């Protein structure tokens, strides 16, 4: 249900930000990582270049690499299976697997594969639906789609704001990105906030 809604929102947002239906679907199939996908369309939609978009999306994708580090010793797969496992290593599959930790490694593996494949299928189906829907709409502002995109980002970040440090970082990045928008080329104000995150993380 939630995956379907995010998928639809992504497909619609991608088209609203200037990506074609095919490009939107390829992002969901190949990138397959919600936050990274939203980031790349968000940066290009705001007028940023391809490099800025790729850099922002990739900074968000580092997370999946760390999940891979955690999952690999538990999955114990090689070759083609490892490639498939890597592709479905995302927030959801890792979270479900770790949630099964007390029930043993077999339950963890099961949780990982079932969640990974399930999310993959729904995410892609709903991306197509959202992209085609947005394409049929014409002027996206008439449908409120230009607000659906920041609302979707907000929905992604909200559950991550657990401590006061998280909230202060979020507000700092909002102010910083807006202050830098008239000065820096589009896209850079967004990427630059990653350095604020690193600085805060190093001081912790």
């Amino acid at each position, binding site marked *: 249900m*939630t995956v379907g*809604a*995010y998928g639809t929102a992504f497909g619609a947002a991608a088209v609203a930000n200037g990506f074609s239906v095919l490009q939107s679907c*390829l992002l969901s199939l*190949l*990138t*397959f*990582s919600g*936050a*990274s996908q*939203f*980031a790349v369309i968000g940066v290009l*939609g*705001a007028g940023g*270049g*391809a490099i800025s*978009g790729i850099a922002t*999306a*990739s900074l*968000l*994708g*580092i*997370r999946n*690499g*760390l*999940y*891979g*580090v955690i999952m*690999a010793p538990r999955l114990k797969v090689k070759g083609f299976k*490892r*490639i498939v496992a*890597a592709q479905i*290593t995302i927030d959801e599959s890792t979270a479900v697997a770790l949630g099964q930790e007390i029930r043993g490694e077999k339950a963890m593996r099961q949780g990982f594969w079932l969640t990974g494949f399930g999310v993959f299928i729904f995410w892609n189906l709903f991306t197509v639906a959202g992209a085609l829907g947005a394409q049929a709409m014409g002027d996206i*502002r*008439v449908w409120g789609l230009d*607000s*659906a995109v*920041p*609302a979707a980002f*907000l929905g*992604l970040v*909200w559950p*991550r*704001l657990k401590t006061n440090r*998280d909230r202060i970082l979020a507000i700092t*990045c*909002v102010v*910083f*990105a*807006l202050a830098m*928008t*008239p000065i820096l080329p*589009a896209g850079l104000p*967004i*990427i630059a*906030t990653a350095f604020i*995150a*690193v600085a805060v*993380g190093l001081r*912790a």
Partner: protein
Amino acid sequence: MNAFWVATIGTSVIAFLLKYTGHNVPERIFSHPKVQAINALIPIALLSALVAVQTFTEKSKLIIDHRLAGLGVAILALLLKAPFPIVVISAAFTSAAIYNWL
């Protein structure tokens, strides 16, 4: 090949390489608490910046328009613990109403 294609393919290739690399490095390298902390903070920073830029800017200019109302309703929905679909739809509906009728 235009910027949208470069971005689509570049993002996809790097996204997969990051995932695959993770599956091929020893666990202990990334167990450092600072690495874990930074990993949790980067999404907060980037996503917050994206919310701001997508709501308050248009082509390198700061602007306040119907999107602010949409964001306000989204915040309200989140404070009321509404599920994601309601958050997005209520924001879109509010924004569209203001854009079309005011």
